[in-house]
């Protein structure tokens, strides 16, 4: 039962194969003997022409193929170059332009799979030979296929209302498309809303962010749902069905005008509970508004702390105080179902939990703060009205800022969080400005790559801030000499001098790094995308598709993709918006024709395949008593094909015979290769 017959014809068609191997400059040619592969393939049955070329993906490279198709009447094309994930489309388009069905093309990956991962030229060449042979055998069985187009629903869902989500929402809304912006917290604004000033220009964060927040609220094309979470996502590019849960605020959003009379009227005269927005450094009441510029300006109840939710015995003075009757303590979660064509995930990041690095004494010593806490402390609307004070209420005379807390550390996170150097410089400036204290920056490497960033560093050095190059080993209350008594002592090697120093300070600021949110994995599962090793969302290509994901129609922007600062987040949000808009304005997207289909005359109607389809694309035709695949629903995984017990389902591009011949091609050759290797080694 052989699959290819000796004379190299299949069902009456004589294949005329063209094989092209790419040098990719030195990327492939340095490790794979390109000429040898080219000659080897030339000797295989069915191969009419075999060529090597410096850059196959270049215009002249593509023209080479097109010329051969026309002149040599080629009907099958194999290109051995990089990963098909990178250039398969390029070559298919080239083949199509030459008048051949693009699916008579097959690509061999000899860069990512061979030259870059092998350190022996003979072995790499042998492997490339085997892969090329397999492709030649496989391409015999390729068929002419048509691509399918699906329409794109123009509505966009944006998850996350930080600066990235806000910017993406406004960009798309301004382009005239409808946006659903879903935010988990009661207000949009994200981390940026907590910051005091922004580096390096020292603009007030609120001054530049608040106008954008209110634009979002007022934009006719934006449906803003705060205090809401995505529960379920179904469908595929162009047509996602999303279920959203709107958590109860116990205040009717449409009626509340944010007058805060209810807050004043609360039976708690004093605020009692830690205020999340101020990092727990101040208190709020059970009914509250996160911060004065919160958007929307709607109060909400915290049922955990409100007496009425616990005992039902409150006098409910808040309800009486509301003229507009906006308070509804019986509110229940509301569920929305929306249809969108594309999604932008801008779910943001989380700061490193400094308690995981106990050597710095966070939570152990009251005067050790995280950078986010200091942002609130230096902020005029923060818990101390902008006064920088120690827990004892004194103005600190010396402050140490420790960089890289949780970053560049195998025990915490290996990566550099990119923003800490710059924000530490900013905080150093602000603390010095507010207190006149001696400020020490303890850094491993100062990383200021950005427009105006190095100049900002320069400015700080001139302001007299201390820079000690060394990673702090410990913050301790262990005093060795009198001047260290009642202070926190920082032990560090000043590596530029080569001496261990003990520096007593009144306040320590931990420049905590950025990490993925705890539920990043849940979100990525819901949207069917991947995370990279460290847990941030994985982009389709680090350079060429930085805001796309492996799932069509899902884009990512901001801190959820990796540590980045405000300008980069905004730029990325713009890019994601542009990607979404480009899909919308194309109106439709072409899908790979790798769908499965059932050959009706062969199907026995055993129904084995029907429950296997995750998209319910297979149904049973009661008339013919056979199974039928709805190709519009099929996503092309091939599970049903592998499971069909009578071999009656075929998957385009991955037919059984194609794969069998690929296997044979890989292996039959292996024997020859061993002999060849022996010759080489002898």
């Amino acid at each position: 039962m052989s699959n290819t017959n000796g004379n190299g014809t299949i069902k009456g068609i004589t294949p005329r194969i063209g094989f092209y191997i790419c040098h990719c400059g030195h990327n492939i040619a340095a490790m794979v003997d390109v000429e040898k592969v080219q000659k080897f393939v030339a000797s295989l049955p069915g191969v009419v022409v075999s060529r090597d070329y410096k850059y196959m993906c270049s215009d002249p490279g593509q023209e080479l193929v097109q010329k051969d198709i026309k002149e040599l009447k080629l009907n099958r094309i194999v290109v051995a170059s990089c990963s098909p994930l990178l250039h398969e489309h390029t070559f298919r388009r080239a083949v199509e332009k030459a008048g051949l069905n693009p699916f008579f093309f097959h690509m061999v990956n000899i860069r990512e799979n061979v030259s870059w991962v092998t350190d022996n030229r003979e072995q790499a060449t042998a492997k490339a030979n085997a892969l090329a042979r397999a492709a030649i055998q496989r391409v015999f069985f390729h068929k002419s296929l048509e691509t399918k187009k699906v329409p794109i629903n123009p509505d966009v869902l944006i998850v996350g209302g930080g600066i990235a989500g806000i910017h993406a929402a406004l960009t798309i809304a301004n382009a005239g498309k409808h946006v659903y912006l879903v935010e988990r917290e009661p207000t949009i604004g994200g981390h940026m809303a907590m910051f005091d000033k922004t580096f390096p220009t020292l603009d007030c964060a609120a001054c530049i962010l608040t106008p954008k927040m209110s634009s979002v609220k007022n934009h006719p094309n934006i449906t803003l749902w705060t205090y809401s979470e995505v529960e379920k996502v179904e469908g595929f590019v162009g047509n996602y069905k999303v279920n959203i849960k709107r958590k109860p605020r116990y205040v009717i959003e449409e009626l509340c005008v944010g007058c805060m009379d209810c807050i004043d009227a609360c039976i708690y005269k004093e605020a009692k509970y830690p205020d999340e927005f101020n990092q727990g450094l101040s208190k709020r009441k059970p009914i509250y508004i996160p911060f004065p510029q919160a958007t929307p300006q709607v109060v909400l109840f915290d049922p955990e702390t409100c007496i009425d939710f616990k005992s039902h015995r409150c006098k409910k003075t808040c309800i009486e105080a509301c003229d507009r009757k906006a308070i509804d303590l019986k509110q229940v979660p509301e569920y929305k179902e929306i249809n969108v064509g594309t999604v932008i995930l801008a779910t943001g990041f989380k700061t490193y939990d400094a308690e995981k690095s106990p050597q710095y004494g966070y939570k152990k010593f009251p005067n050790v703060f995280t950078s986010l806490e200091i942002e609130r402390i230096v902020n005029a609307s923060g818990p101390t009205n902008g006064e920088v004070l120690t827990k004892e209420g004194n103005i600190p005379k010396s402050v140490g800022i420790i960089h890289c807390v949780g970053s560049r550390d195998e025990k915490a996170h290996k990566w550099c969080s990119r923003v800490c150097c710059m924000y530490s410089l900013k905080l150093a400036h602000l603390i010095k400005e507010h207190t006149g204290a001696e400020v020490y920056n303890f850094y491993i490497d100062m990383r200021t790559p950005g427009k105006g960033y190095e100049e900002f560093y320069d400015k700080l050095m001139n302001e007299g801030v201390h820079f000690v190059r060394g990673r702090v080993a410990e913050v301790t209350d262990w005093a060795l000499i009198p001047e260290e008594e009642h202070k926190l002592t920082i032990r560090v090697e000043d590596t530029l001098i080569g001496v261990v120093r003990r520096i007593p300070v009144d306040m320590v600021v931990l420049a905590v790094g950025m990490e993925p949110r705890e539920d990043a994995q849940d979100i990525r599962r819901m949207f069917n995308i991947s995370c990279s090793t460290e847990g941030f969302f994985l982009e389709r290509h680090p350079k060429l598709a930085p805001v796309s994901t492996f799932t069509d129609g899902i884009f990512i922007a901001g801190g959820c993709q990796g540590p980045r600062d405000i300008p980069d987040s905004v730029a990325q949000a713009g890019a994601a918006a542009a990607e979404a808009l480009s899909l919308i304005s194309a109106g439709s997207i072409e899908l790979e024709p790798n769908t499965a289909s059932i050959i009706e005359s062969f199907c026995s109607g055993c129904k084995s395949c029907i429950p296997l389809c995750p998209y319910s694309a297979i149904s049973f035709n009661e008339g013919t008593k056979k199974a039928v695949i709805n190709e519009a629903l099929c996503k092309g995984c091939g599970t049903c094909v592998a499971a069909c017990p009578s071999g009656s389902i075929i998957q385009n591009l991955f037919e059984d015979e194609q794969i069998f011949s690929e296997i044979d091609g890989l292996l039959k050759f292996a024997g020859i290769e061993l002999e060849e290797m022996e010759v080489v080694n002898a």
Partner: protein
Amino acid sequence: MDTTIDVKSFAPNGKQNGYNGKAKMINRKIKYESELSSDFKETIAELAHGEKLYGCIQCGTCSATCPVSHYMDYTPRKIIQMVREGFRDDVLKSSTVWLCASCYSCTVECPKGIKITDVMYALKREAISAGYFPKRFPTPVLAENFFAQVLNNGRNSEGPLLMKMYMKTNPFNALKNTMLAFRLWKTGRLTLKTEHTKDRKSLKKLLGSIDKQKEALAK
């Protein structure tokens, strides 16, 4: 060959120049690549079972956490850099290697997971085999005596061990500690008796086999 210059001729106390140690304050602080040992880092990485030392970011956490780094001529961080760059002789002659108390705090704190204590052990072994350790420096002497004692007896006897060490390095110190020894003896915490395991033969075989295997490996 005429074009090569003997770098030693540039030494401040070399005969070619006139300083002759008169200007002791002035120390030569230049290294030529030819003075460095390019395979030193591989040797140490292998001996210390880890190539992670190549990834040192020179943050100085090891030095800052080390309880004795302020006595060292080079801090542990510097030692790592010197190892990486092939400053073989300087490293092996340094006091750092012998001051390391093996408390492992650097190993625990290193953000790059470098097993610095093991690097120090590797350097100790390398220094001993290169004959670089200071003759009257007690630590290597202690180590060698300890080694000999365990080889012969299987166990260590603290009394005789310390006696021997003091005699070899600094007999004066032994006198200083006589009082301490006496009190220990009085409270039953020290004897001059030599401890040993019963089956010393099997121990000899064990160690002999290691020697044999090493010889075979060397061949």
